[in-house]
């Protein structure tokens, strides 16, 4: 979704982010309070994500049952006082599996989006700054990578690399790289022509220093926004990979794997098994999208696109 938005707004300069032009800092607490007031949805989303991250970290203390050890006396138990969200075909507690599954989803989601955005930015900024034939070749390569539907590239990579957490992170980062590269390249091209870059070149800054100290900080805002968008996308695609059997393997609890039974048979016996993992994914994705929108509005009010 953001690809499109990014590509239509790509030409808009992000030059206004230079620290010298950015608004002066108020006290930390007042700023936080203003943020909550101006972006209530963003604040709630941040809170929800925080709660989910914390419960993933402290899973052993929160989860009521062992996520992998099933109770053979309690198969397909509907949601009840004892098992809040019911149990699955092996008598494993769904809630506990969701809490532990959040670890997998969040590690992979954050890992893939950060890795993809970092590599993509490195490529995009370097190519945009250097230009010339290096840039042209890299751009054709990025175009080719963009031609793959995201999930397809990730699926092929995951099948090649095998299904460990690191490999799934790499596989999911792959499709993010060209998208981040395009956005950071576009802002670099705009920045390159601005006066303050020209000035730093005039006073004799090295190219590396210009890139690291002046260009990178200014590409930060749009990249932060797309990072949050890709966090959500990566989590959905991770679940899809697991569902297809190309991602995390049993008995590790993961949200995608939890849905992978036959929906037609589960519908009559235990619909809650497929229901709750999807709800969990939707909440995380919704929260990260809304947070991304809020960050965008705060960092760049010009970009109010509401998509």
């Amino acid at each position, binding site marked *: 979704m953001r690809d499109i938005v990014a590509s239509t707004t790509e030409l808009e300069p992000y030059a206004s982010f230079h620290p010298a032009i950015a608004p002066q800092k108020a006290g930390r607490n007042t700023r936080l309070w203003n943020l909550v007031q101006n972006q209530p949805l963003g604040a709630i989303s941040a809170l929800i994500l925080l709660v989910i991250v914390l419960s993933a970290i402290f899973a052993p203390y929160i989860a009521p049952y062992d996520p992998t050890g099933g109770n053979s006396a309690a198969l397909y138990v509907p949601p009840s006082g004892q098992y809040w969200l019911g149990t699955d075909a092996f008598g494993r507690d769904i809630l506990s599996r969701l809490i532990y599954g959040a670890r997998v989803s969040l590690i992979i989601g954050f890992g893939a989006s950060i890795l993809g955005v970092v590599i993509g930015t490195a490529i995009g900024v370097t190519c945009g700054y250097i230009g010339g034939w290096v840039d042209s070749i890299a751009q054709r390569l990025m175009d*080719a990578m963009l*031609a793959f539907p995201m999930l397809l590239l990730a699926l092929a990579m995951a099948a090649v690399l095998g299904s460990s957490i690191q490999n799934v992170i790499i596989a999911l980062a792959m499709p993010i790289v060209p998208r981040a590269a395009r956005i950071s390249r576009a802002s670099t091209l705009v920045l390159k022509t601005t006066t303050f870059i020209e000035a730093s070149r005039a006073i004799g800054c090295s190219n590396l220093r210009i890139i690291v100290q002046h260009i990178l900080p200014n590409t930060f805002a749009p990249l932060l926004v797309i990072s949050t968008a890709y966090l959500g996308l990566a989590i959905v695609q991770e679940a899809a990979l697991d569902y297809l059997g190309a991602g995390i393997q049993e008995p590790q609890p993961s949200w995608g794997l939890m849905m992978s039974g036959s929906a037609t048979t589960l519908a009559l016996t235990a619909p809650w098994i497929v229901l709750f993992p999807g709800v969990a994914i939707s909440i995380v994705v919704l929260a990260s*999208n809304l947070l991304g929108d809020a960050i965008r509005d705060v960092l760049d009010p010009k970009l109010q696109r509401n998509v």
Partner: protein
Amino acid sequence: MTGYIIQRLATGFVTLFGVAVIVFLIMRVLPGDAAVMMSGAGSGVVSEQEIAQVRHRLGIDRPLVVQFADWAGHVAVLDFGTSLRTGSPVIEDIARRFPYTLQIVVLAMIIAIGVGVPAGVLSSWLAGTWVDRTLQTVTIIGLAAPSFWVGLMIILGLVYFFQWSAPLFWEPFWVSPFKSMSQLIWPAISVGIRQLALIARMTRSIMREVLGEDYIRTARAKGLSEKRVVFRHALWNGALPIVTLIGFEVAALFGGLIVTETVFSVPGLGQYVVQSILDRDYPAAQGIVLVLAGIVVLGNLAVDLLYGLLDPRTRVQGAGA
């Protein structure tokens, strides 16, 4: 315009070539060697020599560049080789499965556009009211819910309320159009909901922008009916970016179909690509991945050309991009 078309076609061709290289490289480093799989080495009774023979027969003991040239040469005449799994030519498998996928995509886009655009127009026109807020909430949830999970929920609902069962045989459209449509409508809905939400939100924000323009005020001031202002003046001008989005989304739909077809077990291209990749059926996987990426490239090309046709300004800009 001719120059523009030639330039776009050339870029598209270069991109396709890059796609072919990437597909080839990814598939050839698959660790589960096809030769080992085929000779059933998992059982442990096959000698190294036999595996080497299979490798030689498949031609995968040659240098990579030679293999690529060989493969690309065949692909150029639409010969993708023979599937290791089904034993029939990959191009035939693809041709047999393509109609299902195409039908789902068309249905999904009809649903997405038919509901999404009016919803977006309504939302922009009633901006700030409860109708707008409800639509905004529904669509943002539609964007967050994974489409394959939406598919699973649709199956749950169908089975639970209508004792639905997954079709054992999917009617081709030309045999019985009605039955075929009623079977494929469910995967189409589940994959189209995301597009619907996206189109509705995009239409809303574009329309909001357009409705704020001076010429809309002029149109209202000269006493045109609100209907005429919204549809004739505003929507007509906002149509271009919406068309672009729809063009890109058709390509994205093919991606979404990969999982959805597996969820519904529709024998389309999405299911084929998943099975081929997971079974390390590399002739099939290479072929179908190339075809899917090729569809995306062609889709983007079509959007570019359409855009150039509808909006002459982009032809000049496009030349530099």
